[in-house]
């Protein structure tokens, strides 16, 4: 590739990732705001939470096809409307795919931080006769600034490094991830060239660490977080209710095809109902084992991943370790997000081939923890920094040491975020493919590596059947985590 084309590709990657990240953050912010700061009906709030996290429950392999089968020339939505809404190949398709792909992450980060913002500042600001804009700035936007930046960066890097969506709907719009794939996994594999491109892709993460440490100063800690019922405002609530119904409908509309397609013979040309694909997929004898593998890997990844994310966040936010060390942990956490899964998989293959870890569950779990470390760490970090910083000092005066105060005071108060982190790791381990395909072995296959095999032999009906299976598992898991959260909340009261 000549240097002029390369620069154009780099520019494309930056542009589409940044635009997608802005969209994802704005949409997520409105959604989280309507949950925390408006009086819209509870059912709409629940709908928002479910639908904004829903895309995360499905392997990304299906995203591109969901767009093609929804908005393509013969797509479900195109056929219902009678006309194709927009050309799905190129910038538009990428933008749509990236926004759906990253909204769960940005939403979770913002929603999670909003839990830890004291809503009473609104009353104080109102009593001081601030205008609405100042109130919004002081009590909502400013305390969230750090998280909004985090969310933007997370979304940006997820788009920047994703290969699946541009491979499906990228069209003429060349991006770096495709260049990387063609170089590393193309007809003539060139790992050195691939390494060069991936190092280049790491560069923006250095800038992001600097940006994050700058916005740190906007973070505010609260002594006590009190929840208040937002005052009545019919105009505001109507507006957010419309958003709260319309946006989940869009998400459901796009993904509906995944749930329709496997029940048809061969969509779009043979749309008659059949259970044939489900029966064929479930009569595969190995499926039960593969499913159990995925489940075990996800639980263990979630457990150890949460532990590491929590320890990392404790070190950077609740300890007095010198700043350079904290910065280093921040950098590591952000860097993991900028390594494309494929590069991580190949790196693990280089490192562990021939060792006793090769093709083992342990290696897969480590790989998953590293691959997804960034968002859980940032979630834990923003939760911990919102908690009162004097707790440890007070505990120290009362005779407790630092560790005891962490265990007895900080941990119970961070429970909700710990469970959120656990579920984030669990769900992502269930859906991840790009790195695992290189390190799973014949005895350690997972549902997603099976999906990749099926995709390779063009058996998309089964791909969607297994995707629904993963979706159902994640939904059930999330339901259990939610129950756990609410029982713990009650017992704390």
């Amino acid at each position, binding site marked *: 590739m000549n240097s002029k084309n390369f620069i154009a590709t780099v520019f494309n990657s930056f542009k589409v990732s940044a635009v997608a990240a802005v969209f994802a953050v704005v949409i997520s912010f409105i959604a989280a705001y309507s949950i925390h700061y408006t009086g819209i009906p509870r059912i709409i709030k629940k709908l928002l939470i479910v639908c904004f996290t829903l895309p995360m429950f499905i392997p990304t392999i299906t995203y591109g096809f969901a767009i*093609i089968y929804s908005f*393509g*020339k*013969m797509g479900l939505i195109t056929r219902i409307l009678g006309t194709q809404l927009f050309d799905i*190949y*190129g910038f538009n398709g990428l933008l749509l795919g990236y926004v759906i792909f990253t909204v769960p992450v940005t939403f979770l980060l913002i929603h999670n931080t909003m839990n830890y913002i004291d809503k009473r500042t609104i009353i104080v600001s109102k009593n001081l006769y601030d205008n609405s804009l100042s109130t919004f700035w002081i009590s909502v936007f400013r305390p969230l600034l750090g998280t909004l930046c985090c969310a933007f960066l997370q979304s940006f890097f997820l788009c920047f490094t994703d290969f699946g969506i541009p*491979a499906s709907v990228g*069209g*003429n719009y060349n991006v770096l991830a*495709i260049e990387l*794939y*063609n170089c590393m*996994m*193309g*007809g*003539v*594999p060139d*790992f050195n060239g691939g390494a060069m491109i991936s190092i280049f892709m790491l560069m923006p993460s250095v800038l992001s660490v600097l940006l994050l440490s700058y916005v740190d100063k906007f973070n505010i800690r609260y002594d006590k977080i009190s929840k208040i019922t937002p005052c009545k405002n019919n105009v505001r609530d109507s507006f957010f209710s419309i958003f709260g119904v319309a946006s989940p409908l869009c998400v459901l509309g796009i993904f509906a095809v995944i749930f329709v397609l496997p029940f048809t013979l*061969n969509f779009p*040309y*043979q749309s008659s109902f059949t259970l044939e694909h489900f029966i064929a997929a479930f009569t595969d004898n190995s499926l039960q084992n593969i499913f159990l593998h995925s489940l075990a890997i996800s639980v263990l990844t979630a457990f*150890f991943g949460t*532990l*590491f994310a929590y*320890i*990392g966040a404790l*070190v950077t936010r*609740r*300890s*007095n*370790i010198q700043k350079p060390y904290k910065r280093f942990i921040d950098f590591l956490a952000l860097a993991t997000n900028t390594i494309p899964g494929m590069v991580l998989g*190949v790196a693990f*293959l*280089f490192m562990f*081939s*021939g060792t*006793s870890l*090769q*093709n*083992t*569950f*342990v290696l897969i*779990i*480590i790989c998953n923890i590293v691959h997804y470390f960034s968002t859980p760490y940032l979630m834990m970090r923003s939760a911990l920094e919102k908690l009162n910083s004097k707790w*440890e000092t007070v505990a120290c005066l009362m005779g407790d*040491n*630092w*560790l005891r105060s962490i265990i007895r005071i900080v941990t119970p108060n961070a429970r909700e975020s710990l469970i959120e982190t656990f579920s984030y790791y669990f769900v992502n381990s269930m859906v991840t493919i790009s790195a695992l*395909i*290189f390190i799973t*072995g*014949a*005895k350690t*296959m997972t549902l997603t590596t099976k999906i*990749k*095999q099926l995709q*390779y*032999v*063009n058996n*998309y009906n089964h791909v969607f059947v297994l995707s629904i299976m993963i979706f159902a598992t994640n939904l059930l898991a999330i339901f259990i985590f939610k129950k756990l959260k609410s029982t713990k909340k009650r017992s704390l009261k």
Partner: protein
Amino acid sequence: MKTKQILPMLGLSLAIAFTAGCENKSNENKTALPENKTENSREVVIYSNADDEAIAAMTHALDNNGFKGKYNFMTFGTSVLGGKLLIEGSNIEADMITMSTFYVNSAQEKNKMFKKLSFNVNTLEKVPEYTAPITSQEGAIIVNTDVLKKNKLQMPISLKDLAKPMYKGFLSVTDVKASSTAWLLMQALVSAYGDFEAETILRGIYKNSQGHLESSGSKPLKLCEAGEVAIGFGLRHQAVRAKAKGLPIEFVDPIEGNFSLTESVAVIDKGANSNPLAMQMAKCIIENGRKELLENYPNVLYTGETSNSANKSKYPRTFERPLTFELYMAHQKISENAK
């Protein structure tokens, strides 16, 4: 203050040590398992990039000849398996592979990782002593007849036709830089028209397939199946399968020829750890699997073979020069110039 600094560090290192300890232990348990079994009963792991029909044929051959339950097939995309072979060499988990022949050859060149086959391989064309071909995969033009009719397009008969301006926006091909499926297209063009004219035709083809120059070899067929494009270029047997399902898919054998790439079986040389069953299974697949394989991949490869398959292509051709990595790179260069 000091404790406040030391404790988190201690906690961190303890946690790492603890988890690392657990991991090693669980790993020991896992790796200990196969050791307990006797060498002969150890399952043969077969990595393969073959399609469903080929896997089925090989499975039947193995099962009907006493190997049932003694092997484990794991399939990969060509690029992933190619990467694994180059990086892992003989450390690879598999005891045996089936893979595109020129990848097998380059892996052998780089890693010296395959055993010399212990059985006779009577191929029509000479092959290296560590491989035996299992299938020959041909390229063809794939057409969605429904889209073609709706847009009043002519049915193409040659690859040169695909460069005609009327197909602009209706065509999808694979980039030869990303996938070897596109090499079948390149071979046909270069063989029929020479390097220079091939580049000109390819320029027209790329112009027509703007937005649909794909990385994956099966994507053009997929786009035809989804009604997104009218014409694609891909593997012939996959199009045959799609048509058999009753989809509005037709395949056209281009007059420039149905060029082909072979996939071969090879046995990994793991020294003393080699599983002796692997070589027996490789032999079994070649001796007993070829008949069924010929149904879907009708090109004859061994002396004495005949094929009556209805799936035979009209213009089976092979490239005049050996299909080496150097040739592949040369063809990639023509393609890059045409972009």
